[in-house]
């Protein structure tokens, strides 16, 4: 047996690049997703009609044409929708708010649902939805921020972080610094757009609602429906065996789920609803627009003396989401005088929600670009500047930083990437008609811990079974849990079955916030040790046989992990994951076309359970960084508040031809101060800081400093000279 609550990484199965178990099912199409599921009889299909104004009220709505169309069973509008509790704005967790639909005439944003058509087939429902005619009383809306709009300073940002922090005397520290950077950075909204759209199949058995849905965290659905529909959690049975990506967009309840739930109740038959790709742009929350002012002051040697990070972002006042963007500077670099602040403005747009690396992605894009500007002002190497300002204690709280490996990531990466070949002067390196440059940025992400329970059993059919309600959102949950159980119990990987993503299974924190692996493996580790103890047997290949000899009906045991709020003295340590990004790209001297040549990420996330699935998440995150810097933005029309480029032809994500070979390196060092088995998360870390490395490489290549993202030819070409 190998226990994982030690720094030992010489493990038998954990730490190996094992293929994901569900891979063959997914690539052959035999993995069935929520919308493809059947059960409880033939499902009717729901399709939403949506508002074509940005703010106002429905004046009239005519569904008669649709009601007369073939196959249409019911059209739900505010006139006949069942009562649902109002959206609980005061609930600080955006993930568990009630999200009622079709509850009144009010239109809060463009694309707001106005009717749900339920029909025999998808095509019939879609056709009838298009036949719904509404007239509106349109009110002037605020869709884009302008100077002078009301702003307020919230006490808390998302995930319970303080809205503002102060240490020392920032203003004086900054004013008296030998070198200063004071710049403002703007980022446009992002939409998560997982490959599998948001979809739910619902049916009722008496007072019990059965849902098959595409979601990250099943318990959040139960909490939301408890408020919205008054359903006790035990009366909401949820299954989500396969989820085709989430990226934060499947943490909260959306219109597909509410539509299927109330629709199925009204027609007394199963109903399934899938958002269209275009609807996913307005019926799922997005990463808000941001404007960030970053002020950095340094002494003549480059030591930071003042760090100020002010974040202005939009947050819908009815359904607030205050992205925790300002937190990234709190534990990143040392420095005596510090200030972070969030300020919020309301816009009449879809609400904000977590989109991969909420806070860190936009925050580090701004701050790590500013660090590059400071390095230039100091005429200092950007890696050396970051290393100089590294710290072993949290600069705000004074708590020790666990597993702090920032310098190690930067130095290892610089060596591997060949950073020393970088020329400090922009435009100094040419390859034909291309300017070539390199950029670097640091990565940091807060480590969270959520209450989790896991069960492991020896079953009468001579198998080991792991049971947890965690989802596998494409990350590899099925695979890593089988690895951990096999490792700790001393059995073969193939002897372990993993049952996930059902509310009848032991509850955990789900997949989100990069905590699924760390929470669940820690609880599973404890469950495995408890099973061995109950069996009175050592770990080893004979475990199943010997256990069943004494317990023919099988034997199970549970393990658990408390939430960070219930861990005594949790705040006495400061826990994070770290990384360093290196990018080399080329810019055509005439046309401004950008070709990314090389990307390297060096990451430290504690024990690496499976370098294959971990690499996949990290490199995906790095490409998100490319996208945020160079490609991706939701364009809001300021006249009506609609997203102009709301489909995947015009909402530009990187294509394969944009992405070179991506080099991912992981420092495999269990962080036992952060987690009982030394595991931290990798789901978001790759997307933390990478976009700044692209922006910095762009500057080093062509001398154009991007402060408005994504970089577009319209802004780059005029500056090329």
């Amino acid at each position, binding site marked *: 047996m190998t226990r994982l609550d030690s720094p030992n990484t010489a493990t038998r199965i954990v730490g190996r690049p094992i293929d994901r178990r569900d891979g063959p099912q997914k690539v052959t199409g035999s993995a069935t997703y929520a919308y493809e599921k059947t059960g409880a009889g033939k499902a009717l299909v729901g399709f939403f009609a949506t508002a*074509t*104004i940005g703010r106002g009220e429905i004046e009239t709505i005519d569904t008669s044409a649709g009601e007369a169309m073939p196959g249409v069973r019911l059209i739900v509008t505010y006139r006949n929708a069942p009562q649902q509790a109002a959206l609980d704005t005061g609930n600080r967790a955006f993930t568990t708010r009630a999200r009622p639909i079709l509850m009144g005439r009010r239109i809060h944003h*463009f694309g707001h649902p106005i009717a749900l058509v339920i029909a025999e087939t998808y*095509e019939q429902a*879609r*056709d009838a939805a*298009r036949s719904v005619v509404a007239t509106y009383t349109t009110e002037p809306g605020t869709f884009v921020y302008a100077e002078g709009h009301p702003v307020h300073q919230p006490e808390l940002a998302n995930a319970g972080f303080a809205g503002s922090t102060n240490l020392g005397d920032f203003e004086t520290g900054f004013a008296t610094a030998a070198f200063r950077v004071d710049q403002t950075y703007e980022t446009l909204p992002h939409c998560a757009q997982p490959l599998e759209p948001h979809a739910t199949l619902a049916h009722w058995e008496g007072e019990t609602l059965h849902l098959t849905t595409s979601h990250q965290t099943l318990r959040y659905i139960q909490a939301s429906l408890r408020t919205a529909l008054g359903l006790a959690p035990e009366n909401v049975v949820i299954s989500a065996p396969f989820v085709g990506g989430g990226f934060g967009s499947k943490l909260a309840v959306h219109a597909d789920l509410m539509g299927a739930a109330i629709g199925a109740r009204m027609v007394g038959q199963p109903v399934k609803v899938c958002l269209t790709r275009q609807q996913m742009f307005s019926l799922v929350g997005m990463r808000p627009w941001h404007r960030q002012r970053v002020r950095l002051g340094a002494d003549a040697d480059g030591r930071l003396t003042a760090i100020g990070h002010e974040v202005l972002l939009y947050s819908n006042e009815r359904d607030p989401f205050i992205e925790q963007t300002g937190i990234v500077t709190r534990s990143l670099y040392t420095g005596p005088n510090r200030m972070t602040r969030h300020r919020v403005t309301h816009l009449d747009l879809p609400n904000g929600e977590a989109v991969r690396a909420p806070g860190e992605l936009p925050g580090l894009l701004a701050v790590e670009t500013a660090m590059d500007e400071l390095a230039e002002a100091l005429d200092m190497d950007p890696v050396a500047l970051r290393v100089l300002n590294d710290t072993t204690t949290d600069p705000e709280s004074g708590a020790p930083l666990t597993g702090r490996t920032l310098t190690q990531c930067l130095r290892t990466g610089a060596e591997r990437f060949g950073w020393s070949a970088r020329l400090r002067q922009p435009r100094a390196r040419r390859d*034909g*008609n291309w300017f070539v440059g390199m950029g670097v940025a640091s990565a940091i992400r807060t480590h969270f811990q959520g209450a989790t329970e896991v069960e492991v059993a020896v079953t009468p059919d001579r198998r080991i079974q792991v049971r947890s309600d965690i989802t596998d959102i494409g990350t590899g949950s099925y695979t890593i849990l089988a690895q951990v159980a096999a490792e700790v119990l001393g059995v073969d990987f193939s002897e372990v079955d993993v049952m996930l993503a059902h509310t009848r299974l032991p509850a955990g924190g789900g997949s989100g916030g990069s905590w699924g692996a760390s929470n669940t493996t820690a609880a599973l580790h404890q469950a495995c040790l408890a099973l061995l103890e109950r069996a009175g047997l050592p770990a080893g290949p004979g475990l199943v046989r010997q256990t069943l000899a004494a317990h023919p009906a099988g034997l199970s045991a549970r393990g658990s992990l408390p939430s960070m709020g219930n861990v005594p003295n949790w705040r006495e340590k400061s826990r994070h994951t770290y990384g360093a990004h290196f990018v080399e790209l080329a810019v*055509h001297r*005439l*046309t*401004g*076309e950008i*070709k990314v040549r090389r990307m390297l990420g060096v990451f430290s996330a504690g024990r690496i359970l499976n370098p294959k699935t971990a690499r996949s998440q990290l490199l995906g995150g790095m490409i998100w960084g490319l996208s945020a810097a160079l*490609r991706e933005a939701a*364009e809001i*029309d300021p*006249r*009506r508040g*609609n997203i*102009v*480029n*709301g*489909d995947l*032809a*015009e909402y*530009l994500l*990187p*294509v*394969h*031809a*944009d992405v070179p070979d991506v080099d991912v390196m992981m420092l495999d060092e269990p962080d036992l101060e952060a987690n009982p088995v030394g595991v931290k998360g990798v789901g978001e870390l790759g997307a933390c800081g990478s976009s700044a490395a692209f922006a910095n490489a762009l500057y080093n290549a062509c001398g154009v400093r991007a402060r408005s993202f994504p970089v*577009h*030819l*319209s802004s780059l*070409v*005029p500056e090329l000279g």
Partner: protein
Amino acid sequence: MRPFAYQRASSAREAVAMLAARPRARIIAGGTNLLDLMKLQIETPAHLVDVNGIGLDTIEPDGAGGLRLGALVRNTDLAAHDTIRRQYGVLTRALVAGASGQLRNRATTAGNLMQRTRCPYFYGSAMACNKREPGSGCDAREGASANLAILGTSAACIATHPSDMAVAMRALDAVVRVLGPAGERSIPIADFHRLPGATPEVETALQPGELITAVELPAPLGGTHVYRKVRERASYAFATVSVALIARIDGDRVAIERLAFGGLAAKPWRVEAAERRDFGTPEEIARDAATVALAGARPTDRNAYKIELAQRALHAALIDALEQNR
């Protein structure tokens, strides 16, 4: 999608007869654009005439040194055709710069010419678009216009034509052959796509009931063929600016035999007077040619950069021509 009738034609003549017999009939070939537009109810034909079974899917010499490209030749096959690759390289290069492999496998020569604009305001049903709904106005002009037209626009419309293939064909002086109720006729590609004027919904010179049967390419011109497409990502994006160029080379100096721009107007943009047949450096030639070709540009605040980018793209294309010739 609105209900529609569907018929398969077995010959071009039968297809024309079917078109004539049915009001609001449309031809469907690859369907890569039309089906999307039907799902969005931007196109609502009452009848579809499927021409995939009518033949017209070969590339043949025309007897006068040129080639006759059947209307149903798939984009992939056209791009890969040996004579096209060797003697009309600008066309192969333009084709492979467009869409994706999957779409090119389906899309046809005629369908590529007939595809409709990707202006986002044409797609957004809640927004005013004179092309989608004549007389409703143009929300694009004051909207997100960064990738829209700067030349040949009107108060009614600033959409671009999205085809890459058509830009190369314009440089090659292709001729579109059509069959209609009154028989066959030829339309020079220069006259095939229409500028918007007051009727942006009229996009081509095709008359009701007419079917494209072929595109004819004149005898090869020789020279160095370049298609340079500048866009916001490396694949699967429409041109911000594209340049179809046939150049002649003399040492380090270049001359323009043919030049057409894409991404700037509702049709491939060629100004014959801009084709500088005197040799010069790429920079000089690009400046002179762009000044003539782009004269009269009327950009919006958000797409004025395209004027400079077009000149730069031409400059880059001329350098590409030199390098290609080394």
